[in-house]
């Protein structure tokens, strides 16, 4: 019974670990996605902005960045959160002519916006499904009627947003010659760092960084989320080690006579330790496998709300399962060290005499 409880406890630990890590991964991937799915290799934000929605810089910076040698594309993107048929969504204002060079997408129906004409938008597949609209339909963007020119699919976070011309976005926000960010594509990806340096020198009031670094820059809170997840893992792991160690100690105490017999019949100190470790390893494997299976089943059905009505499914990252396996088995072994050393010192004559 004690062994079964130990296995279940370990499975619960694995579920906690996989749950927390998957939650962080899901947020990370989606937040990364909300920026990096706009494409490009370098993001340019106003200095000190913690989220692209809060960034504001002159649109003319795009042409200055474009003039740097090695830059193939520098295009402004205005980001704004608006209501679309009463659902909040992230709206990207892009330069229609440059958009195809920025992002890979396929149109599932209709066409992508191709001019600065107002009153037209293209909508991501997931958002279209959420509001129940398709190409040719009308949607209310911030209370005004827009015609949906087409539905695009990127298999990124962009599928939860919609695209309008940059000039239209500027009007909606009330900005003149301003934009949220500039997305940069280089001619040679090996030069990204050098170009980032040149942008920072050329435009001291902006910050430039790799798109992949966006999550930790988006918000200090997001960066600390990973630290919190690590702290939770450490606390849960230490608790698990102590709990399983206590269980092991009691379990071994109950079987003190058995180990005394082993020793009396010739088992060495090392052999007793090996036996305990082997048993703990098996329990660790069992608990871990059970925990992984439960985590997979439960988390496959869990969604988290990201923006109002937009729910994203928990993303199960393979590396989380690999780390969980290592963690589960390591904890099992670690929790066996003290009990193993203690039981290996058992004195058979005392056990046989006094029980």
């Amino acid at each position, binding site marked *: 019974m004690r062994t079964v409880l130990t296995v279940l406890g370990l499975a619960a630990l694995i579920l906690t670990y996989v749950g927390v890590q998957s939650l962080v991964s899901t947020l990370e991937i989606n937040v990364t996605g909300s920026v990096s799915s706009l494409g490009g290799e370098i993001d340019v934000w106003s200095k000190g902005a913690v989220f692209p929605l809060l960034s504001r810089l002159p649109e003319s910076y795009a042409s200055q960045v474009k003039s740097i040698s090695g830059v193939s594309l520098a295009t402004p993107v205005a980001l704004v959160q608006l209501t679309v048929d009463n659902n909040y969504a992230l709206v990207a204002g892009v330069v229609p002519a440059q958009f195809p060079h920025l992002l890979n997408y396929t149109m599932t129906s209709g066409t992508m916006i191709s001019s600065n004409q107002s009153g037209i938008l293209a909508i991501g597949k997931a958002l279209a499904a959420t509001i129940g609209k398709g190409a040719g339909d009308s949607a209310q963007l911030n209370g005004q009627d827009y015609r949906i020119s087409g539905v695009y699919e990127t298999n990124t976070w962009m599928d939860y947003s919609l695209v309008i011309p940059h000039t239209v976005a500027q009007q909606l926000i009330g900005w003149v010659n301003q934009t949220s960010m500039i997305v940069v594509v280089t001619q040679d990806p090996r030069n990204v760092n050098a170009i980032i340096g040149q942008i920072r020198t050329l435009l001291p009031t902006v910050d430039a960084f790799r798109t992949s670094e966006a999550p930790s820059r988006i918000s200090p809170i997001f960066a600390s989320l990973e630290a919190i997840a690590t702290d939770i893992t450490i606390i849960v792991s230490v608790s698990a080690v102590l709990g399983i160690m206590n269980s092991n100690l009691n379990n071994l105490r109950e079987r003190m006579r058995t180990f005394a017999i*082993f020793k009396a*019949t*010739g088992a060495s*100190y090392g052999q007793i330790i090996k036996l305990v470790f082997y048993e703990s390893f098996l329990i660790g494997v069992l608990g871990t496998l059970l925990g992984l299976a439960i985590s997979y089943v439960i988390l496959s059905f869990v969604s988290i709300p990201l923006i109002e009505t937009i729910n994203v499914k928990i993303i199960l990252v393979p590396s989380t399962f690999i780390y969980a396996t290592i963690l589960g088995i390591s904890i099992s072994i670690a929790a066996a060290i003290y009990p193993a050393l203690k039981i290996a010192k058992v004195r058979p004559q005392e056990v046989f005499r006094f029980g």
Partner: protein
Amino acid sequence: MDDEIILRTQGLGKTYETKPEKTVALDDVNLQVNRGKLLAIYGPSGSGKTTLLFLLGGLDRPTSGRIYFEGVEVTNMDERRLSKLRRNAIGFVFQNYNLVEELTVLENVMLTMMFEGKSEREMRDRAEQLLHKVGISGKEQRRPAQLSAGEQQRVATARALANRPRLVLMDEPTGNLDQENSQELMQLVSEVIHGEGATCVVATHNLDIVQEADSKLFLKSGRIVSS
């Protein structure tokens, strides 16, 4: 001749310190056992028979004196060498058998061979052979609790002989058996042990065993009274 002496003690003593008092379990015990012989240690309860066997078997350490096994002093051996001695050279049949309840009869007999690192095939063959010799054939897959006291004693004997020890120590082997079963068991055990070429030291109350022994020691209050 000294090389015929397999076991010898010199001024052996054991004192248990249970504060505030000290209990002298053994005091100045000198004995020797010749190879292939049966030594019976007898005496009243609490006379130190079990303590003496535990010391001889390397399960406990004396507080004074020395033990020599095959001419080598075991008193100061480290734990690793003592384990090896218990595994290879000495077989122990405990008063309460001390079979592992979770294991089958066959696995109990294979236990010491497992610690010796023998192959599965070798362990199984040897265990089955010994169980056949002690008359437990057909009950290999039973648990100790499913056997009678006499049968458990035989399994314990088979386990003690598994690694072909040169010395077998038996603590009250007939203590839990009636007279008829005692005689039958001792005859069988004696045949098997001698058949294996082992020397045997038996601690017992049973005078029939004492009569049959090649040599005997009467122990009283931890001291040898007569031999």
